């Protein structure tokens, strides 16, 4: 931490007001911090904490007049950003600050070549002629580690992958060598391995240019990876602010402690799973091919989503399927639950091959295999009451309505919600609560196997832990088997007995959780493990207990 004299950006009592009728009057409430050269300040918080609002206020991106700065000052190199003229603001924004956004897929203009988009800022704010600008663009593309800058300069954004686009965004932000770089969750939309590369890159350019960086994230792993100082935000207030070492290892505020305790991590105490008896489900050489762009008289392109995938799930076992986006992990889950028809191989469930069964013949098995979906906001029909949503399965299978509704209330209690929730509509619940309803719906048919497709990816960390604990708890209580699909190895480590690592449609490694983490065999598994952010940091010992205590009383956790 530094004194404000040498700070690039000094924020004092920043408040941002929300339009009347919002859930709180101030999105950001008197936040004070400063960033010096060569400092990386991480702003951490959950969704709705106002962390992005801080960045947008500094950059002048607030959707005025609905949301506006209500007080305080932000001094960039001593100049107050909020009191200067519009023209001056524009100049300062170009030269003094750069920003990287969360979603690289939409942050670039699809109709402009990459080179032109980088050049834009140079045209406006520098005195370089067109040759000088071109040289600078090539240099920047080189700096952010993009291959073949000469060709890349002339290509359109759609040719680039998410990671490459984020590099281009960084190149744009760096074009004028700003004193301050603001990165708003720049790696959240990326795969872990790409995230690692981008984090390395940000650190590299930061040291090379001696910039100050404000890095907004919800992930304490990322914080541990790059931060030199940390500000923790909750409900618009900065509840803890200090050096990375202090906040990460000796957190004071209860909220910070809770967040850190919620960081998913590998738990050593889990005993190895020993399969007993026959496998509940055995997938053998499952193959699924999608035909893209086919239609009337058009054949289209073939895309192999799952190729020669084999695994088995024993009663009571949780098998994790881990992989990056496009690895085919969701396709596998959907083939098993019967949402996709596998094109080859066998999926044997208790002795019956499910592949190739007609819709009618498959129906009895629907009871036994149930699914929990990723997005709790999309997985509940907004037009129905919770009781109807949960009991839709049993009613479809012939349970009388009254009985199904009574059962729904029991299930709500089991997943840690009040039975009165049955009479309400989904929109009255938070994301975590909705995911609990989703779990209750899956349990309503008394399944033997649960397919959980990224069940916690859309949730905040603290809620994530609660839902994971709940799943783990219920699984043991009811003796369920589970196929747990996730992109996050840390999450898988917490609930899975066995882990299958998938890459481009194939399983490259399959082994017990302990083995995969301690003795990874495949190169790709090692890359994945290596890419987990914040490995050098151990969650403080006293906080691990907090975690264990909470797992025991899921009922009170319903937020």
């Amino acid at each position, binding site marked *: 931490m530094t004194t404000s004299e040498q700070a690039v950006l000094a924020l004092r009592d920043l408040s941002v007001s929300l339009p009347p009728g919002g859930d709180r009057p101030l999105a950001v409430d008197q936040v004070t911090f400063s960033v010096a050269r060569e400092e990386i300040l991480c702003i951490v918080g959950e969704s709705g904490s106002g962390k992005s609002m801080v960045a947008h206020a500094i950059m002048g991106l607030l*959707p005025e007049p*609905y949301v506006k700065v209500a007080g305080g000052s932000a001094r960039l190199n001593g100049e107050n950003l909020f009191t200067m003229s519009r023209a001056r603001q524009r100049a300062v924004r170009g030269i003094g600050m750069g920003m990287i956004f969360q979603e690289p897929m939409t942050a670039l203009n699809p109709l402009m070549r990459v080179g032109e988009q980088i050049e834009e800022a140079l045209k406006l704010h520098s005195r370089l002629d067109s040759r000088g600008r071109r040289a600078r663009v090539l240099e920047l593309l080189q700096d952010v580690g993009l291959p073949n800058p000469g060709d890349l300069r002339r290509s359109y954004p759609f040719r680039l992958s998410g990671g490459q686009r984020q590099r281009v965004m960084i190149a744009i932000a760096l074009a004028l060598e700003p004193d301050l770089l603001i990165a708003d969750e720049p790696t959240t939309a990326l795969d872990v391995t790409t995230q690692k590369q981008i984090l390395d890159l940000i650190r590299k350019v930061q040291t090379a240019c001696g910039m100050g960086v404000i890095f907004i994230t919800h992930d304490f792993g990322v914080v541990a990876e790059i931060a030199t100082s940390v500000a923790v935000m909750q409900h618009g207030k900065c509840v803890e602010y200090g050096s990375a070492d202090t906040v990460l290892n000796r957190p004071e505020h209860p909220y910070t402690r809770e967040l850190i305790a919620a960081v998913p991590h590998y738990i050593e105490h889990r005993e190895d799973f020993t399969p007993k008896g026959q496998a509940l489900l055995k997938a053998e050489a499952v193959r699924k091919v999608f035909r893209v762009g086919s239609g009337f008289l058009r054949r289209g392109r073939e895309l192999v989503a799952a190729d020669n995938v084999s695994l088995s799930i024993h009663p009571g076992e949780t098998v994790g399927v881990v992989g990056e986006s496009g690895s085919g992990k969701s396709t596998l889950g959907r083939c098993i639950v019967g949402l996709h028809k596998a094109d080859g191989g066998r999926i044997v469930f208790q002795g019956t091959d499910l592949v190739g069964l007609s819709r009618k013949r498959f129906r009895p098995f629907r009871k036994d295999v149930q699914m929990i979906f990723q*997005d709790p906001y*999309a*997985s509940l*029909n907004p037009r129905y009451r919770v009781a109807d949503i949960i009991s839709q399965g049993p009613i*479809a299978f012939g349970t009388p309505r009254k009985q199904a509704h009574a059962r729904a209330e029991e299930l709500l209690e089991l997943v840690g919600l009040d039975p009165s929730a049955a009479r309400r509509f989904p929109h009255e619940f938070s994301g975590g609560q909705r995911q609990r309803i989703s779990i209750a719906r899956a349990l309503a048919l008394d399944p033997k196997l649960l397919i959980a497709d990224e069940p916690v990816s859309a949730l905040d960390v603290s809620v994530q832990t609660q839902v994971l604990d709940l799943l783990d708890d219920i699984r043991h209580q009811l003796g369920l088997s589970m196929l747990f699909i996730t992109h996050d190895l840390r999450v898988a480590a917490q609930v899975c007995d066995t882990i299958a690592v998938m890459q481009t449609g194939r399983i490259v490694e399959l082994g017990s959780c302990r083995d995969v983490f301690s003795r990874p065999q495949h190169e790709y598994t090692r890359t994945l493990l290596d890419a987990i952010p914040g490995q050098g940091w151990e969650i403080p010992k006293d906080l691990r207990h907090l975690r264990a205590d909470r797992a025991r009383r899921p009922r009170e956790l319903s937020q």
Partner: protein
Amino acid sequence: MSRDFWRAFANNYGAVIGLALLLAVVLMAAFADVIYPRSPWSMVTTPFQPPLSDDVLLGSDTLGRDIAAGIVHGSRVSLLIGLTSSAVALFIGVTLGALAGYFGGWVDDAIMRFTELFQTIPNFVLAVVLVAIFTPSIGSLVAAIAIVSWPPLARLARGEFLSLRSREFVLAAVTTGQSTTRIILREILPNSLSPIIVAASLTVATAILLESALSFLGLGDPNMMSWGYMIGASRTVIRQAWWMSFFPGIAILITVLAINLVGEGLNDALNPKLARKGRGR
């Protein structure tokens, strides 16, 4: 839900005015026999009486029929044809669109090519041909207007179904063993209804215009007084007796405008995310 809906609807002054006008037209149609008990076809006074004459408020036409009576009775035909033909169009359009959107693949291809077939023929020409073939009557008018009005509704329903079909709550319904009919009718349809209702309300306005245009050409039901017929019959004397075509024209304008205003109000109230601008996240 419904209280929010009414509040949003009432916030739009245009929609409230539209609703009031529409109510007036509906009342006029309902009480036509009370207001003007005599047939609108009967000749009650001297021809070519200007508006505000003794016994005819809006003047009389070339045969001495009361224009005001014609307008009041004509509202019945307009509303009847507008509503029934839109209902039929809605039924055909949503059924085909839902099937195409839900099943996709060759079903979608077949239904959409069929829809395009109708869209490539100009609406009005097709309607004229159909009515001419089936001889003009209320039934053939409704059928013809419905046949030319369903394609946009089908496309809209298809789009909604396409996007909702892959939503997770629909997948969840599949995995819990719901039947296909139930998924289409109970899971997807209620969620796709708001844009369809809005489009259907605008279809009513277009149907009224189509009916007027057909009647203008002499293709209306010969037994029923209609606004379009009144304009058509008096078009030759428009320079001598402006009121004969002016008042029916105003009636069409007001009714169609009212329905459009209501439709827009419905749109704002049912799709609040599109209506509210510039809200922070």
